[in-house]
């Protein structure tokens, strides 16, 4: 080992197979300790499969999964996972939902609530502590779900198309909140999306996956845009456009392929 700190997530030659069906043929993904990596790819290319592998829910059929230098055995204790649909408990208030993971750890409810209120404030939901999920808008629920994941202070944050169901304006607000939180306390973050705009706006690196089944990595592009980024102004800059064109030249072909297999 050289003097560089071990990677937070290091997948090498990972293959994932369900019976005879090869979902992911060969995947190499290296994510540094404070790095924000977005994974893009056409529908059905096994993006979520990658996250499930990092969490330890799926065992790869071949290849290595290393978390902070150690081979992953069982569930990954360092990761926090934010799902595409929020899984808030409808019978718990916003603060109790945010503090849920702490309660599961055996922390007293008063401590969990106290910490949850801090996190609700961080995602801009001060004053919504006692609301039930059905009293919150889609964007507000996402923010509760985000706080619910981040309050556990995972060293590796996994997000699976978390904002895909939101309208454009709400999504942009979520991008701003996420970037602010990440900027303040940088962690390793893997963000799955099919939206290239979103990927370039948020990430340090964009990884492009090929069309499934049997997908693999076809590109790994460093996003050199300076930070902190202005989410709303960024997308009209020349650098952004150039990056978009560069990545789309890789991704576009794969999307076409996925259309062909679906037709």
């Amino acid at each position, binding site marked *: 080992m050289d003097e560089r700190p071990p990677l937070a997530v290091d997948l090498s030659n990972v293959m994932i197979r369900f019976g005879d069906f090869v979902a992911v043929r060969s995947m190499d993904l290296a994510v540094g300790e404070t790095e924000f990596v977005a994974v893009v790819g056409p529908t059905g290319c096994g993006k979520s499969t990658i996250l499930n592998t990092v*969490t330890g829910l799926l065992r790869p059929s071949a290849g290595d999964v290393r978390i902070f230098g150690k081979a992953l055995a069982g569930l990954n204790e360092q990761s*926090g*996972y934010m*799902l595409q*649909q*929020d*899984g*808030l*408990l*409808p*019978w*718990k*208030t916003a603060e109790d939902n945010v503090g*849920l*993971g702490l*309660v*599961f*750890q055996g922390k007293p409810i008063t401590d969990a609530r106290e910490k949850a209120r801090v996190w609700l404030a961080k995602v801009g939901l001060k004053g919504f502590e006692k609301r*039930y*999920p*059905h*009293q919150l808008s889609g964007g507000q629920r996402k923010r509760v*779900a985000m706080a*619910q994941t981040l309050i*556990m202070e995972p060293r590796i944050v996994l997000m699976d198309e978390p904002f895909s169901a939101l309208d454009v304006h709400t999504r942009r607000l979520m991008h701003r909140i996420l970037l602010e939180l990440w900027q303040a306390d940088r962690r390793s973050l893997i963000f799955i999306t099919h939206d290239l705009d979103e990927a370039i706006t948020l990430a340090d690196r964009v990884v492009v996956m090929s069309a499934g089944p049997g997908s693999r990595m076809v590109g790994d592009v460093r996003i050199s845009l300076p930070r902190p980024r202005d989410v709303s102004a960024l997308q009209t800059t020349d650098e952004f456009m150039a990056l978009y064109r560069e990545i789309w030249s890789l991704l576009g072909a794969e999307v076409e392929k996925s259309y062909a297999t679906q037709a």
Partner: protein
Amino acid sequence: MPRRLKILLTQLAIVLGVICLWEAGVRAGLIDSFFFPAPSALAARIAEWASSQDFWTDVATTLAETVLSFIAGIGIGTVLGIWLGLSPFAADVVQPFIKMFNAIPRILLGPIFVIWFGLGLTSKVALGVTLVLFVAFFNTFQGIREVNPVVLANARLLRASRASLLRHVYLPSATTWILSSLRVSVGMAVMGAVVAEYLGSSAGLGHLIAQAEGVLDATGVFAGIVVLSAFVVALDAIVDRIEKRLLVWRPAHVHEA
């Protein structure tokens, strides 16, 4: 609330109208008071009962039987529902037996329970339990089975233990189902108690009605039915309170500002 007031007044008008027509019909000789005693006669009978100690013993007996069979039935049904809901193997094994027991007309068990447990409280509670148990069981089972898979996955990702899942996810989910069935369960518990009393007992509202029937006293039977209805309505109101309190998080019960 003018709409609610309007509904209430209309309901009141219907009740008063029926009572007045009935009373007038009896007085005019159009309705035979032997089969359909006048409302005034029923009121008089109920008033007479209310001043006697025996009547209140009857009410207390039926209430005790109802409450006991309700609690025991819900308890056993819920535990069974959780167990089978969480264990598909056990559910598949036990399913046909449960269907079989549920298919037995429960009234037929009344005499058997009297033979087993005697004429006292136990046989009444036993019949009530067999009725309430299945309602509670099926609802709990359904509630456990129909937990939103995303919610469940999310709780697991937050490292919930099996006990935590049960307490924070499965039970609250099942509670909504159990609560929505409480009303049916209360009705079942009352039915079990009254039917069992009717079949053989020494006290209770069912006993009261059975006695009146034995001497072809239609006034007594009708008065008994009226008292029983009031009894169920009162219990229903209590259940309604409990339900509203426990389901504050549900959209239908919360009015957004």
